[in-house]
């Protein structure tokens, strides 16, 4: 098992130098054709261990098929994929993998505790360890009160939660989450975020497939934009702050003089009522800007560096074909 925090902050530059053993996922030219229709054109991807990696792309971009190939559910037409250092689909490696399918469906005649016990048994876990693990997980996903309730009486959100618990049974080294928050209310989404964070601290790798850009933005270390089953671009979300940064300042008494005053650090400044938006070439300048504004008497309520909007980039990539 990996140590907490290990390689959690790996940047894009380092990835190329990663030896294969340190990669949770590595694919080269992975392709899938269903009855003459190309689902995934050529997926080449490297995800280091310990990273929270987001898969972004429009509907039909081949995200789920890619995940299924990595999990061994779908056989690639061509190309190679290794997962935790073994060929994708390797039965032994699945012991270290957790998976929440997109449309989580399971034997709805089971109760939630029975479902977890069954999956635990399929993972090869002992009855003794399951006696401890099952209540823990039910508690974690907020279903402790529903341990004896059958899944057929569960709401979509509850199914998503039990699906998530099922994906964590074996303390996996690699977790695939396909649209984990699609059926969840804001509290549920928060829960998923917290769980992903906890997995990161444990040193696990998470591959997150989500439509919700804000979720991905908050959760992921790196994202790949997928279109037609190809990686168009990967982005390191942690390093975005190192380069040009846009800062949003909300203050009650901003003046045009103050806006002019910060121009020496900024490449662009815009003032509108109580809101000042400025782009700085380096985030190193941010403390200076803040000190300056305070020294001029600005009553600051918010000072937020903006991550480059994923949404903007997503829409650029998706173009007019979009269809979230």
């Amino acid at each position: 098992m990996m140590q907490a925090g290990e390689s959690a902050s790996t940047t894009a530059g380092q990835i190329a130098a990663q030896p294969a053993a340190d990669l949770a996922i590595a694919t080269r030219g992975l392709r899938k054709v269903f009855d003459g229709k190309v689902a995934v054109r050529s997926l080449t991807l490297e995800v280091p261990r310990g990273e929270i990696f987001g898969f972004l792309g429009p509907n039909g971009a081949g995200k789920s098929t890619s995940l299924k190939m990595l999990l061994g559910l779908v056989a690639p037409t061509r190309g190679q994929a290794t997962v935790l250092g073994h060929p994708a689909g390797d039965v032994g490696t699945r012991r270290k993998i957790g998976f929440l399918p997109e449309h989580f469906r399971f034997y709805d005649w089971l109760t939630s505790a029975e479902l977890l016990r069954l999956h635990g048994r399929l993972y090869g876990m002992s009855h003794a360890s399951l006696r401890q693990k099952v209540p823990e997980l039910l508690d974690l996903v907020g279903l402790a009160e529903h341990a004896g309730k059958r899944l057929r009486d569960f709401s979509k959100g509850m199914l998503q939660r039990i699906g998530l618990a099922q994906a964590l049974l074996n303390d996996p080294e690699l977790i695939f989450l396909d649209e984990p928050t699609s059926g969840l209310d804001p509290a549920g989404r928060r829960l998923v975020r917290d769980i992903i964070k906890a997995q990161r601290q444990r040193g696990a790798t998470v591959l997150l497939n989500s439509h919700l850009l804000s979720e991905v933005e908050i959760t992921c270390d790196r994202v790949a934009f997928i279109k037609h089953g190809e990686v168009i671009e990967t982005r390191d979300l942690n390093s975005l702050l190192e380069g040009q940064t846009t800062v949003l300042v909300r203050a009650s008494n901003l003046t045009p003089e103050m806006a002019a005053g910060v121009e020496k650090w900024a490449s662009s400044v815009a003032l509108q009522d109580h809101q000042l938006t400025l782009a700085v070439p380096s985030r190193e300048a941010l403390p200076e800007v803040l000190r300056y504004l305070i020294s001029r008497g600005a009553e600051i309520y918010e000072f937020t560096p903006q991550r480059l909007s994923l949404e903007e980039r997503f829409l650029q990539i998706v173009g007019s074909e979009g269809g979230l």
Partner: protein
Amino acid sequence: MGTWIMAGVTFREAARKKILWMAIAAGLAFLALFGTGLHYQMKDLAARGMNPILLKQIPGTMLMVGLYAIDLLTVVMTVLVSVDTLSGEIASGTIQAVATKPLPRWQIVLGKWLGFAAMMTAYLALLVGGINLITYAMARVTAHNVPQGFALMWLESVLLLSITFFFGTHYSTLTNGVLALGLVGLAFLGGWIEQIGAVTSTTSAVNVGIVASIIMPSEALWRRAANSMQSPLASVLNFSPFSSASLPSSTMVVYAGVYAAVALFFAIRSFSRRDL
């Protein structure tokens, strides 16, 4: 290990979804009906002072009718309970969470197969055992060679199970059911053509029946089962679903066994190779 877990889940599913209990209840109702009918029949025969040979022959024939109904019930029940297990779970995506666990896919198929096979064995044992007990209790008559007849009927059920599994890895639930029961119908018709052909000494008709049995040997198994369960005298006298004007060879029984094994093998192979 995975195989046994899947077998257990399959059995538990049938119990939880009440399929098992309904099948048992229907089986018990069937036995109750049979017992009631036989009771009145025996009462009437005794009152009339029937001769002792006929007094054995009539309940013996009723027993064979009952066994024939059990055979049909078992075949249909085998297809019905297992028709959705692979195709349904593939279509709904339910199989994904299982197939990504550390167990080879063959264990999923074999486990499910074993679960259903165990269930059908219990079902068949209940009905065949029950009807023989009832007939013995009321008329001191049982089928001639129950173990052999039971084994042949069991093989018929297992054959249908393997075929349903095979189709289940290729087609939707409905198509699977249509195909499996269609084959049973074909074998049924072929069996009759063969019998009539044998009685009228029409070799071509017999051959049509044999070809039908090669395509689907279920009816041939029933005829072997019927032959081993009824008294040698009755099998010569009667022309019925139990008669053996043209008795399928023991090679056909071996063929049916191989057929079932091959169907299961290809079901496993196709499930292991297909995308889920």
